[in-house]
Protein backbone atom coordinates (compact mmCIF):
# COMPACT_ATOMS: atom_id res chain seq x y z
CA UNK A 1 0.00 0.00 0.00
CA UNK A 2 3.00 2.31 0.41
CA UNK A 3 2.95 3.09 -3.31
CA UNK A 4 -0.53 4.56 -3.04
CA UNK A 5 0.48 6.69 -0.06
CA UNK A 6 3.40 8.26 -1.88
CA UNK A 7 3.84 11.83 -3.11
CA UNK A 8 2.31 11.17 -6.54
CA UNK A 9 -1.02 10.25 -4.97
CA UNK A 10 -1.13 13.57 -3.10
CA UNK A 11 -0.18 15.39 -6.31
CA UNK A 12 -2.97 13.54 -8.16
CA UNK A 13 -5.52 14.51 -5.48
CA UNK A 14 -4.38 18.14 -5.70
CA UNK A 15 -4.66 18.11 -9.51
CA UNK A 16 -8.17 16.62 -9.30
CA UNK A 17 -9.24 19.27 -6.76
CA UNK A 18 -7.75 22.08 -8.89
CA UNK A 19 -9.64 20.76 -11.93
CA UNK A 20 -12.93 20.87 -10.00
CA UNK A 21 -12.18 24.46 -8.88
CA UNK A 22 -11.57 25.67 -12.44
CA UNK A 23 -14.29 23.66 -14.18
CA UNK A 24 -17.16 24.06 -11.75
CA UNK A 25 -16.01 27.15 -9.83
CA UNK A 26 -13.98 29.77 -11.70
CA UNK A 27 -15.87 29.25 -14.97
CA UNK A 28 -19.15 30.39 -13.37
CA UNK A 29 -20.39 33.98 -13.59
CA UNK A 30 -19.38 34.76 -9.99
CA UNK A 31 -16.13 36.26 -11.26
CA UNK A 32 -15.30 38.90 -13.86
CA UNK A 33 -14.01 37.41 -17.15
CA UNK A 34 -10.49 38.76 -16.51
CA UNK A 35 -10.29 37.27 -12.99
CA UNK A 36 -11.71 33.95 -14.22
CA UNK A 37 -9.36 33.67 -17.20
CA UNK A 38 -6.24 34.66 -15.21
CA UNK A 39 -7.21 32.20 -12.46
CA UNK A 40 -8.02 29.36 -14.85
CA UNK A 41 -4.78 29.63 -16.84
CA UNK A 42 -2.59 30.21 -13.79
CA UNK A 43 -4.01 27.04 -12.26
CA UNK A 44 -3.56 25.21 -15.61
CA UNK A 45 0.13 26.25 -15.71
CA UNK A 46 0.64 25.06 -12.11
CA UNK A 47 -1.10 21.75 -12.93
CA UNK A 48 1.13 21.22 -15.98
CA UNK A 49 4.15 22.02 -13.84
CA UNK A 50 3.22 19.36 -11.27
CA UNK A 51 2.54 16.77 -14.00
CA UNK A 52 6.04 17.47 -15.35
CA UNK A 53 7.78 17.42 -11.97
CA UNK A 54 6.08 14.46 -10.32
CA UNK A 55 4.52 12.27 -13.02
CA UNK A 56 7.18 12.82 -15.70
CA UNK A 57 9.88 12.79 -13.00
CA UNK A 58 11.49 16.03 -14.16
CA UNK A 59 12.14 16.88 -10.50
CA UNK A 60 15.16 14.57 -10.73
CA UNK A 61 16.09 15.44 -14.34
CA UNK A 62 19.24 17.33 -15.36
CA UNK A 63 18.70 21.00 -14.47
CA UNK A 64 18.86 22.44 -18.06
CA UNK A 65 16.23 19.95 -19.26
CA UNK A 66 14.04 20.66 -16.25
CA UNK A 67 14.29 24.43 -16.79
CA UNK A 68 13.48 24.09 -20.51
CA UNK A 69 10.37 22.00 -19.87
CA UNK A 70 9.25 24.09 -16.90
CA UNK A 71 9.36 27.19 -19.11
CA UNK A 72 6.68 25.68 -21.37
CA UNK A 73 3.62 26.20 -19.11
CA UNK A 74 4.81 29.70 -18.20
CA UNK A 75 5.31 30.74 -21.85
CA UNK A 76 2.05 29.11 -23.01
CA UNK A 77 -0.06 30.65 -20.23
CA UNK A 78 1.55 34.08 -20.77
CA UNK A 79 0.94 33.86 -24.53
CA UNK A 80 -2.71 32.87 -24.10
CA UNK A 81 -3.34 35.63 -21.55
CA UNK A 82 -1.49 38.15 -23.75
CA UNK A 83 -3.75 37.32 -26.70
CA UNK A 84 -6.82 37.35 -24.43
CA UNK A 85 -6.11 40.90 -23.23
CA UNK A 86 -5.36 42.02 -26.80
CA UNK A 87 -8.71 40.69 -28.04
CA UNK A 88 -11.46 43.34 -28.23
CA UNK A 89 -14.40 43.04 -25.82
CA UNK A 90 -17.65 41.68 -27.32
CA UNK A 91 -19.91 43.80 -25.09
Amino acid at each position, binding site marked *: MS*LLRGRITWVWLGLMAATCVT*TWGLSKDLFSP*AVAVIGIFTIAAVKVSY*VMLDFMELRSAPIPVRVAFQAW*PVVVAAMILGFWFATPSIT
Partner: protein
Amino acid sequence: MSTLSRTGTVSTDRAKPRRLPGVDGVWVAIGADSVIFAILFGSFMQARLHNPAVFEASRHTLNMNLGGIDTLILLTSSWSVALGIQALKRDLVDRAPRYLLGGVLTGLMFMVSKSIEYFEKFTAGIAPATNDFYMWYFTLTGIHLLHVVFGTSLLGYLWIRSRRRAYSSVQRVVPECVASYWHLVDLLWIVLFPLLYLMKAA
Protein backbone atom coordinates in the same frame (compact mmCIF):
# COMPACT_ATOMS: atom_id res chain seq x y z
CA MET B 1 32.61 8.33 0.24
CA SER B 2 32.55 11.49 2.34
CA THR B 3 34.66 14.62 2.58
CA LEU B 4 35.11 17.17 5.37
CA SER B 5 34.58 20.72 4.18
CA ARG B 6 36.36 23.80 5.54
CA THR B 7 33.29 24.62 7.65
CA GLY B 8 33.58 21.25 9.31
CA THR B 9 30.39 19.80 7.81
CA VAL B 10 30.45 16.36 6.28
CA SER B 11 29.19 16.10 2.72
CA THR B 12 28.52 12.89 0.87
CA ASP B 13 28.45 12.15 -2.82
CA ARG B 14 25.73 9.56 -2.41
CA ALA B 15 23.16 11.89 -3.98
CA LYS B 16 21.30 10.22 -6.82
CA PRO B 17 22.57 11.26 -10.24
CA ARG B 18 20.08 13.38 -12.17
CA ARG B 19 18.51 11.43 -15.03
CA LEU B 20 15.68 11.56 -17.54
CA PRO B 21 13.30 8.61 -17.57
CA GLY B 22 13.51 6.46 -20.71
CA VAL B 23 15.80 7.53 -23.54
CA ASP B 24 16.79 11.05 -24.59
CA GLY B 25 15.19 10.67 -28.04
CA VAL B 26 11.72 10.40 -26.49
CA TRP B 27 12.30 13.69 -24.70
CA VAL B 28 13.29 15.35 -27.98
CA ALA B 29 9.99 14.12 -29.47
CA ILE B 30 8.04 15.28 -26.38
CA GLY B 31 9.71 18.69 -26.57
CA ALA B 32 8.99 19.02 -30.31
CA ASP B 33 5.35 18.01 -29.81
CA SER B 34 5.00 20.52 -26.97
CA VAL B 35 6.34 23.32 -29.20
CA ILE B 36 3.96 22.34 -32.04
CA PHE B 37 0.99 22.42 -29.67
CA ALA B 38 2.13 25.78 -28.25
CA ILE B 39 2.12 27.15 -31.82
CA LEU B 40 -1.36 25.69 -32.39
CA PHE B 41 -2.60 27.29 -29.16
CA GLY B 42 -1.19 30.64 -30.33
CA SER B 43 -2.79 30.23 -33.76
CA PHE B 44 -6.15 29.50 -32.10
CA MET B 45 -5.84 32.67 -30.00
CA GLN B 46 -4.92 34.69 -33.08
CA ALA B 47 -8.03 33.42 -34.92
CA ARG B 48 -10.12 34.26 -31.82
CA LEU B 49 -8.68 37.78 -31.82
CA HIS B 50 -10.42 38.50 -35.14
CA ASN B 51 -13.80 37.04 -34.23
CA PRO B 52 -14.33 36.89 -30.46
CA ALA B 53 -18.16 36.97 -30.63
CA VAL B 54 -18.38 33.84 -32.83
CA PHE B 55 -15.82 32.02 -30.65
CA GLU B 56 -17.73 32.93 -27.48
CA ALA B 57 -21.14 31.89 -28.85
CA SER B 58 -19.69 28.61 -30.18
CA ARG B 59 -17.85 27.88 -26.92
CA HIS B 60 -21.19 27.88 -25.09
CA THR B 61 -22.36 24.93 -27.22
CA LEU B 62 -19.54 22.70 -25.91
CA ASN B 63 -20.26 20.23 -23.13
CA MET B 64 -18.18 21.74 -20.30
CA ASN B 65 -19.10 18.99 -17.82
CA LEU B 66 -17.89 16.28 -20.21
CA GLY B 67 -14.69 18.27 -20.83
CA GLY B 68 -14.09 18.53 -17.07
CA ILE B 69 -14.72 14.81 -16.62
CA ASP B 70 -12.26 14.14 -19.49
CA THR B 71 -9.61 16.08 -17.53
CA LEU B 72 -10.29 14.03 -14.39
CA ILE B 73 -10.07 10.82 -16.46
CA LEU B 74 -6.69 11.76 -17.97
CA LEU B 75 -5.26 12.88 -14.61
CA THR B 76 -6.30 9.56 -13.10
CA SER B 77 -4.79 7.77 -16.08
CA SER B 78 -1.47 9.59 -15.65
CA TRP B 79 -1.46 8.82 -11.91
CA SER B 80 -2.13 5.14 -12.56
CA VAL B 81 0.71 4.91 -15.11
CA ALA B 82 3.06 6.80 -12.76
CA LEU B 83 2.22 4.23 -10.04
CA GLY B 84 3.01 1.47 -12.55
CA ILE B 85 6.50 2.93 -13.08
CA GLN B 86 7.00 3.29 -9.31
CA ALA B 87 5.99 -0.37 -8.92
CA LEU B 88 8.59 -1.42 -11.51
CA LYS B 89 11.28 0.68 -9.82
CA ARG B 90 10.61 -1.19 -6.58
CA ASP B 91 10.48 -4.54 -8.37
CA LEU B 92 6.82 -4.97 -7.47
CA VAL B 93 6.38 -6.67 -10.85
CA ASP B 94 3.06 -8.27 -9.84
CA ARG B 95 1.50 -4.88 -9.19
CA ALA B 96 2.72 -3.03 -12.28
CA PRO B 97 0.23 -4.69 -14.70
CA ARG B 98 -2.83 -3.58 -12.72
CA TYR B 99 -1.68 0.06 -12.73
CA LEU B 100 -0.89 -0.10 -16.45
CA LEU B 101 -4.31 -1.64 -17.07
CA GLY B 102 -5.76 1.34 -15.19
CA GLY B 103 -4.02 3.56 -17.76
CA VAL B 104 -5.46 1.55 -20.66
CA LEU B 105 -9.02 1.59 -19.29
CA THR B 106 -8.99 5.32 -18.57
CA GLY B 107 -7.56 5.93 -22.05
CA LEU B 108 -10.50 3.98 -23.48
CA MET B 109 -12.89 5.97 -21.27
CA PHE B 110 -11.51 9.20 -22.73
CA MET B 111 -12.08 7.88 -26.26
CA VAL B 112 -15.68 6.93 -25.45
CA SER B 113 -16.28 10.35 -23.89
CA LYS B 114 -14.86 12.14 -26.95
CA SER B 115 -16.98 9.95 -29.26
CA ILE B 116 -20.11 10.94 -27.33
CA GLU B 117 -19.11 14.59 -27.62
CA TYR B 118 -18.44 14.39 -31.37
CA PHE B 119 -21.72 12.49 -31.86
CA GLU B 120 -23.59 15.28 -30.01
CA LYS B 121 -22.00 17.88 -32.27
CA PHE B 122 -22.66 16.05 -35.55
CA THR B 123 -26.29 15.28 -34.64
CA ALA B 124 -26.74 19.00 -33.85
CA GLY B 125 -25.51 19.76 -37.37
CA ILE B 126 -22.15 21.10 -36.17
CA ALA B 127 -19.09 20.20 -38.29
CA PRO B 128 -15.57 21.61 -38.77
CA ALA B 129 -16.85 23.73 -41.67
CA THR B 130 -19.56 25.40 -39.51
CA ASN B 131 -17.26 28.25 -38.46
CA ASP B 132 -13.65 29.03 -37.45
CA PHE B 133 -14.19 28.02 -33.83
CA TYR B 134 -15.46 24.56 -34.72
CA MET B 135 -12.66 24.11 -37.25
CA TRP B 136 -10.19 24.70 -34.40
CA TYR B 137 -12.23 22.65 -31.95
CA PHE B 138 -12.25 19.56 -34.20
CA THR B 139 -8.63 20.05 -35.29
CA LEU B 140 -7.16 20.49 -31.80
CA THR B 141 -9.28 17.83 -30.07
CA GLY B 142 -8.84 15.50 -33.09
CA ILE B 143 -5.02 15.73 -33.04
CA HIS B 144 -5.11 15.23 -29.27
CA LEU B 145 -7.44 12.23 -29.66
CA LEU B 146 -4.97 10.63 -32.10
CA HIS B 147 -2.32 11.03 -29.36
CA VAL B 148 -4.70 9.31 -26.91
CA VAL B 149 -5.38 6.41 -29.31
CA PHE B 150 -1.64 5.94 -29.96
CA GLY B 151 -0.79 6.20 -26.24
CA THR B 152 -3.54 3.79 -25.17
CA SER B 153 -2.29 1.26 -27.73
CA LEU B 154 1.24 1.56 -26.35
CA LEU B 155 -0.07 1.17 -22.79
CA GLY B 156 -1.98 -1.94 -23.90
CA TYR B 157 1.29 -3.36 -25.27
CA LEU B 158 3.05 -2.55 -21.97
CA TRP B 159 0.24 -4.17 -20.00
CA ILE B 160 0.49 -7.42 -21.99
CA ARG B 161 4.29 -7.49 -21.67
CA SER B 162 4.23 -6.63 -17.96
CA ARG B 163 1.85 -9.57 -17.32
CA ARG B 164 4.63 -11.75 -18.73
CA ARG B 165 7.07 -10.11 -16.28
CA ALA B 166 9.05 -8.54 -19.12
CA TYR B 167 9.82 -5.41 -17.07
CA SER B 168 11.56 -4.81 -13.75
CA SER B 169 13.66 -2.18 -11.99
CA VAL B 170 16.56 -2.86 -14.37
CA GLN B 171 14.40 -3.29 -17.48
CA ARG B 172 12.12 -0.29 -17.50
CA VAL B 173 13.35 1.92 -20.35
CA VAL B 174 10.38 1.13 -22.63
CA PRO B 175 7.74 1.61 -19.90
CA GLU B 176 9.38 4.91 -18.92
CA CYS B 177 9.33 6.14 -22.55
CA VAL B 178 5.63 5.27 -22.94
CA ALA B 179 4.75 6.75 -19.54
CA SER B 180 6.52 10.04 -20.36
CA TYR B 181 4.60 10.25 -23.65
CA TRP B 182 1.33 9.47 -21.81
CA HIS B 183 1.93 12.28 -19.30
CA LEU B 184 2.49 14.63 -22.27
CA VAL B 185 -0.97 13.65 -23.57
CA ASP B 186 -2.35 14.54 -20.14
CA LEU B 187 -0.64 17.92 -19.86
CA LEU B 188 -1.66 18.97 -23.38
CA TRP B 189 -5.29 18.36 -22.44
CA ILE B 190 -4.81 20.39 -19.24
CA VAL B 191 -4.24 23.46 -21.47
CA LEU B 192 -6.56 22.46 -24.31
CA PHE B 193 -9.62 22.07 -22.07
CA PRO B 194 -9.71 25.62 -20.63
CA LEU B 195 -8.64 27.06 -24.00
CA LEU B 196 -11.69 25.65 -25.81
CA TYR B 197 -14.29 25.16 -23.09
CA LEU B 198 -13.70 27.65 -20.27
CA MET B 199 -12.20 30.83 -21.75
CA LYS B 200 -14.80 33.57 -21.41
CA ALA B 201 -14.81 36.60 -23.66
CA ALA B 202 -14.08 40.00 -22.16
